[in-house]
């Protein structure tokens, strides 16, 4: 929990967690891979059926326990495999996003986005941008030593 | 100087531009008369300068923006939020300046060159937009005392009044109707005119007048074909090409057009009962005497049957 202790951490050890819905964004990440679109290696993907499955607490917990970034990605609004799951998710996640920095957690560490299964290029862009952001923000000071 | 707004009276900043000061002075005169009649107060932007027109644009849009920015900044300082210009070329330049100002990548350079305080809280509209959207055809109709009932007039809009649509944000880009509706409100009959927005040759009158000969000739020919007795325009350059250069056109096409080309404001003035001299009708190169004759005969007939004309 010590703010200063984190400063010496290796930038290499940036750890980003991605919650990807099985139907769109996980497929989009696969498409990016199939197309060999080069991406940063910081991301660890947790496959979920739908962004609606992503309780905001799943985002909050890693950030509290020291993950450097959390990315949630699902089907585009109105394209949800379960019709409306992502419409619930975007409200809940947006509320969380606005809440984090109040508690002293940099809200840039969390992003949610919509990427379809065919948008490999967009996925590459999302991952690269987010990784870049997290590297700029630096390691999570909450990381336990 | 804050502008005092009287109820029911619209006050706008007025930017007539260089053309209306000289070659198109009748456009200026008639616009002022008509606006007065419609209860719109035009306040000329003090010490306005040239918008730079096409030459500035072709030089660099930033220069054009700064030149027009000066006039906008003055108007804004005077407390106006709307500036009206009858010249579509000037309108394009004014709107272009606002666009540059709103572009975060260009704003800094724009303000650096302009060197005037400017907030961008002002919008530029054309005379037609003022008539059609702010005043409305109903109010225009109510002001008519000498309807142009016996005249068949085609409106010629030219290139810029509604184009490009995203930029001008007024009327339909392919089939504009604002002047049609105004002419109808004046009592005229308005035939379908397919060449409302065909280009007349623009500034090539000076550098390549054979181009104007060809293009303006097509427009006059089409007006003739659809049975028009006159053309209504709202652009000093179009008017110049259609009117002043009609003789050149006749030589180019070996035709004998004699088509009066009046500004929309001149038609409005006539229908409002304003004397032709006060509208600069005498400044036209193609005489409009035939039109005036028809109108006066009409007026007499109406009077003789005890028409409702005041």
């Amino acid at each position: 929990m010590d703010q200063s202790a984190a400063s010496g951490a290796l930038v290499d050890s940036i750890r980003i967690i991605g919650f990807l819905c099985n139907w769109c964004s996980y497929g989009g990440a696969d498409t990016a891979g199939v197309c060999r679109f080069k991406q940063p290696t910081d991301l660890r993907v947790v496959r979920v059926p739908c962004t609606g499955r992503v309780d905001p607490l799943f985002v909050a917990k890693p950030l509290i326990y020291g993950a450097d970034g959390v990315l949630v990605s699902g089907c585009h609004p109105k394209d949800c495999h379960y019709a409306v799951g992502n419409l619930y998710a975007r409200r809940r996640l947006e509320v969380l996003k606005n809440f984090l920095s109040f508690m002293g957690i940099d809200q840039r560490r969390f992003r949610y986005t919509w990427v379809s299964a065919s948008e490999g290029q967009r996925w590459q862009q999302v991952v690269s941008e987010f990784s870049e952001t997290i590297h700029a923000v630096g390691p999570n000071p909450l990381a336990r030593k | 100087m804050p502008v005092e707004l009287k109820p029911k009276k619209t006050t706008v900043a007025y930017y007539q531009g260089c053309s209306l000061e000289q070659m198109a002075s009748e456009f200026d005169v008639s616009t002022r008369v008509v606006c007065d009649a419609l209860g719109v107060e035009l306040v000329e932007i003090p010490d306005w300068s040239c918008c730079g027109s096409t030459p500035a644009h072709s030089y660099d849009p930033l220069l054009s923006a700064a030149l027009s920015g000066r006039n906008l900044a003055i108007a804004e300082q005077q407390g106006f939020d709307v500036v009206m210009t009858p010249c579509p070329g000037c309108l394009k330049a004014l709107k272009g300046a606002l666009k540059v100002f709103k572009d975060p990548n260009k704003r800094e350079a724009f303000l650096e060159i302009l060197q005037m305080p400017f907030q961008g809280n002002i919008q530029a509209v054309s005379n037609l937009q003022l008539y059609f959207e702010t005043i409305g055809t109903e109010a225009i109709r109510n002001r008519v005392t000498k309807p142009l009932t016996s005249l068949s007039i085609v409106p010629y809009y030219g290139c810029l009044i509604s184009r490009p649509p995203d930029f001008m944000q007024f009327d339909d880009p392919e089939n504009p109707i604002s002047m049609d509706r105004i002419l109808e409100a004046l009592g005229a009959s308005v035939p379908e005119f397919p060449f409302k927005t065909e280009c007349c040759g623009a500034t090539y009158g000076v550098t390549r007048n054979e181009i104007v000969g060809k293009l303006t000739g097509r427009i006059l020919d089409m007006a003739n074909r659809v049975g028009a007795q006159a053309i209504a325009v709202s652009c000093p350059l179009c008017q110049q090409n259609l009117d002043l250069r009609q003789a050149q056109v006749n030589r180019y096409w070996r035709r004998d057009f004699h088509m009066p080309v009046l500004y929309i404001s001149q038609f409005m003035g006539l229908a409002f009962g304003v004397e032709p001299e006060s509208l600069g009708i005498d400044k036209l190169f193609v005489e409009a005497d035939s039109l005036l004759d028809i109108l006066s005969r009409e007026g007499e007939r109406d009077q003789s049957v005890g028409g409702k004309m005041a």
Partner: protein
Amino acid sequence: MERVHTLAIQATSDPRFIGEVERASGQQISHCYQCGNCSASCAYTYVYDYPANQIMRLVQLGQKDIVLTSKAIWLCAACQACTTRCPCNIDVAKVMESLRVLSRQEKKVSGRDIQLFYDEFLKLVKRFGRVFETGLLPLFGMKAKKPFTDMDLAPRVIRKGKLGLIPHKVKGRKHVEGIFERFEAYCSRREKDKG
């Protein structure tokens, strides 16, 4: 400019040119799929050396020289017909305008008389703050070596009392002149930054 009959594409293509045009115009040149609607709609196609769609095509191929020396870009009247009708949402008139600006910057202007007219026009604005048609037309005529341009019209215009003989001097003409000067200073700085 003579029409080129065999184009050695690699030898003549300047790929940076595409980017320059895109930056100046804000348009995506690759969006053009050569339907020809701009040429179909353009009132000036008949006087162009390259119709509008071919100008777009030449830009796609990076043919900087051909494009910037073409007459077409100077004959465009910016009437917006191409822009209004482009199915690919390209502001073609804006591209043409940007090409004129680039052509001047690269000193490749072919429409000399048109450029001259524009220059004289701007000189008047710089000097008086407004344009002054009585001065402009003869000036242009002399410099363009076409002293009789529109001479047929002059007596009629004067008879109608439409041309003032004294230029209107704007009080703030120093400020207008300042705009020109600051603009030029800005341009040369921009040039230097680029270089």
